[in-house]
Every structure is written in structure tokens, then in C-alpha cells.
């Protein structure tokens, strides 16, 4: 490969060198390199960009070297930060795998994310709708341009923050740096770049769909938790009733069977035991569902917020 003669050239070669790696890692590496290169060019106003770039391979490092450094460090950090709870391998019995979900910290963070998603979804959705409509309204005024730039800028910061949250919850590698804004240019050219950048639109799309997704996640989490809590709580209520801690005509549950109704009142202990088992199974299934859903959500977030090669 030829030695790069411009910043764009260098970044292109670095991206090629990182080709098969995680897009989030690539975004971070490109950001660092662009920051360094632009600072280096700015620090030597007497030299041309290509003269500065000529020396880069011996100071910052050639694209392949830098790519290798990021790859190595990533592996080490991943090993150091790995969750200490051993993952249950395929050799574990199905029963242990089924109930092992209770030991996985990701389960609880996923459940938390599902509950939080409603709130963040509302905020994101409102932000995009208000931002886009005000941008359209202001477009004929002089403040339309800076307003749109600020809107997209904040959307990128939100995307970075959402990425950090998703990584904290699921462990999916997300960028630690935003997209580099590139060389300072005129407002018109920067708006043009933003409009052409597919990531601008996928980011906005993500922020919009977070509302319906957030509603679905929230409903699943709350309904699942409430129903399993009620099922598991029933035998406790029966015990409380038995010892007289709970008084009144307390009927645990109605079971409608055929034409007539069979009341659990007639067989309270059997009904309580069945509900306890059903509640535990339901709760475990819910936890599995939460983990799987949020993991799938992380992949969606990555495909919309981190575009490979963008």
C-alpha cells in the first residue's frame, strides 16, 4: 500500500486495515487518528498536509500498525472487564441452564433496560419530532441552519449515550467516541454532509422507533413481573390466611372449568402449589425473554447507530 499523503487517505487506509473488526472499534480508532492528525497538521502551519503526513508513519504509526494496536488492546480490555460469573456452558444440564438465568447479572440489567426504555423512548421521540418540525419551520429563516446543525449534533450525543447504556446492559461493544465531525467547513457544506450521511437518518429512525419498542418492552416487563408476583404470592396469602394473619372472605383464585366454576376455595392448597410452580416458571421464562429481547435490541442499536464504514 502506498504511504498516505492526506488525512482522508490515511483514514481510508486505517479503515481498510481494520476492515473485519467491530464497527464500534473502527469508529473509535478513526476518531483518535483524525484528532491526532488534524492536531498535527494544525501544529505545523508552515508545512503542507502531505509533508506532515510523510512523517506520520514514524510518529503516529502506519495504518496497519495502529490497527494492530487497537485490536491487541481490545482483547486485553475485554479479558480484564469480563463478567466474573462463569457462563454456563453447553454441558450444563437443561434444568441448570433454564434456572441459571437468575445468576446472570445481564438478566437484571436487561429487565431494568426494558423498564427504562419507555422513559427514554418518550424523550427520544419527542426530541426528534420537535427538532425536525422546528427545523422545517425555521428553514426559511436565517436561524434554520444553526438550529438544524445543533439538532443533529445533539442527536449524535444522544446516540453515543444510548450506545454506552446498551453496552453497559448487554456487553455489546459500542463506540466510546462520537463520529469525528471532520474538517471545519462552511455551514452549507456541513449541512450537505449531514444530509448525505446515511447514519444521520438511521440515528433519527432509531430514536423514533424507541417509543413503540419502549412501550412494548415496558408492557412485557410490567405484565410479566406482576402476573408472576401474583402467582407466587398466592400460596403466601393462603398461608397467611391459614394462620389468621389475613382475615375476611379471601378467595385465592377462580378456576373456570366447563360449565360450572370450580373454586380454588375448594382445594386451596393444591391451587396454591400449582400457582407457585406456574409463577416460578413464568418468571424464569420472562427473565430469559428479557435477556434475549435486549440482546436483539443491542444488535438493532448497533446496526442503526454504528454503521460499518460510515
Amino acid at each position, binding site marked *: 500500500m502506498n504511504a498516505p499523503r492526506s488525512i482522508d487517505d490515511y483514514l481510508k487506509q486505517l479503515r481498510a486495515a481494520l476492515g473485519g473488526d467491530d464497527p464500534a472499534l473502527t469508529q*473509535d480508532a478513526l476518531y483518535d487518528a483524525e*484528532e*491526532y492528525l*488534524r492536531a498535527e497538521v494544525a501544529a505545523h502551519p508552515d508545512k503542507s498536509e502531505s509533508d506532515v503526513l510523510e512523517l506520520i508513519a514514524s510518529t503516529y504509526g502506519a495504518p496497519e*500498525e495502529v490497527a494492530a*494496536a487497537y485490536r491487541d488492546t481490545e482483547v486485553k480490555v475485554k479479558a480484564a472487564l469480563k463478567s466474573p460469573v462463569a457462563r454456563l456452558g453447553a454441558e450444563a444440564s437443561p434444568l441448570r441452564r433454564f434456572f441459571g438465568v437468575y445468576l446472570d447479572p445481564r438478566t437484571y440489567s436487561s429487565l431494568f433496560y426494558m423498564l427504562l426504555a419507555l422513559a427514554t423512548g418518550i424523550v427520544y421521540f419527542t426530541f426528534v419530532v420537535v427538532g425536525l418540525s422546528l427545523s422545517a419551520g425555521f428553514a426559511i429563516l436565517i436561524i434554520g441552519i444553526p438550529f438544524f446543525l445543533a439538532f443533529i449534533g445533539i442527536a449524535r450525543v444522544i446516540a453515543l449515550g444510548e450506545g454506552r447504556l446498551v453496552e453497559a446492559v448487554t456487553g455489546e461493544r459500542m463506540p466510546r467516541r462520537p463520529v469525528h465531525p471532520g474538517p471545519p467547513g462552511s455551514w452549507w457544506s456541513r449541512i450537505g454532509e449531514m444530509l448525505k450521511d446515511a447514519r444521520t437518518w438511521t440515528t433519527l429512525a432509531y430514536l423514533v422507533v424507541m417509543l413503540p419498542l419502549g412501550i412494548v418492552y415496558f408492557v412485557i416487563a410490567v405484565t410479566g413481573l406482576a402476573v408472576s408476583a401474583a402467582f407466587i404470592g398466592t400460596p403466601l396469602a393462603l398461608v397467611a390466611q391459614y394462620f389468621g394473619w389475613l382475615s375476611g372472605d379471601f378467595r385465592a383464585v377462580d378456576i373456570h372449568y366447563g360449565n360450572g366454576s370450580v373454586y380454588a376455595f375448594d382445594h386451596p392448597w393444591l391451587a396454591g402449589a400449582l400457582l407457585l410452580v406456574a409463577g416460578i416458571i413464568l418468571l424464569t421464562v420472562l427473565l430469559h425473554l428479557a435477556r434475549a429481547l435486549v440482546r436483539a435490541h443491542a444488535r438493532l442499536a448497533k446496526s442503526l447507530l454504528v454503521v460499518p464504514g460510515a
Partner: protein
Amino acid sequence: MDDTQARKFQKDLNAGLVSLVLLAVLERSSEDLYGYEIAKRLQKANEGEALFKEGTVYPVLRALAAQGLLTSRVVPSYSGPPRRYYRITEEGRAMLAQWSDIWRQTRGFVDRFIEGQET
């Protein structure tokens, strides 16, 4: 000697040393530093051929921050995107002291053989 082998040896040596040097630079510094500044300080300290490329500094800084040995904050910059400034944490200082001891021991041990062979 083969040049690529020399480079590989240097790279293997650097694996842990870059972290040690970065912690030391940030411990000595009275102010918070950002990536480019740190890279330039290292460059200035170099005599002749650089021991490691400045491009390797950034990922290591991030790794140290992820392990809690450094903290960082983002400061807007007039001349470009916001910069991330790093500062060493108490944990980082403790780690640096420990690593420095290990480094001194290692250096003494290795020198005993290398110097011994020459005389």
C-alpha cells in the same frame, strides 16, 4: 540482525511498558492531559527512533480508564472536536507504585545478566 525480529521484540517488551509510562506521565503532570499532548510529551522524551508509535497511546489510555486507573472528562475545544482529558486516580497511583517496583526488579535482574556477559 533481522529488522522485523527486532521490531517484534520491541513490541513484546512494550506490551506492559506503555501502560506504565502513561501512568507515570499522568502522575508527574500537574494538570490533566489529552491524547495528543501525551503523545507529544513522549515524542519529546525520545532520543532518535521512537520506542513505540503514538498511535498505540490512545487505545491504552482508554483501556486504563476502563480499568479505573484513570478518570477522564470531555472539554470542548475551539479548534476541533471536544478533547478528552485524563487524570490518574488513587487506584492508578497505587498501581503505578506497584508496577514501578516490578519494573525496577526486572531491570536489575535483566541487567545482571546482560552487563555480566559483557565484562
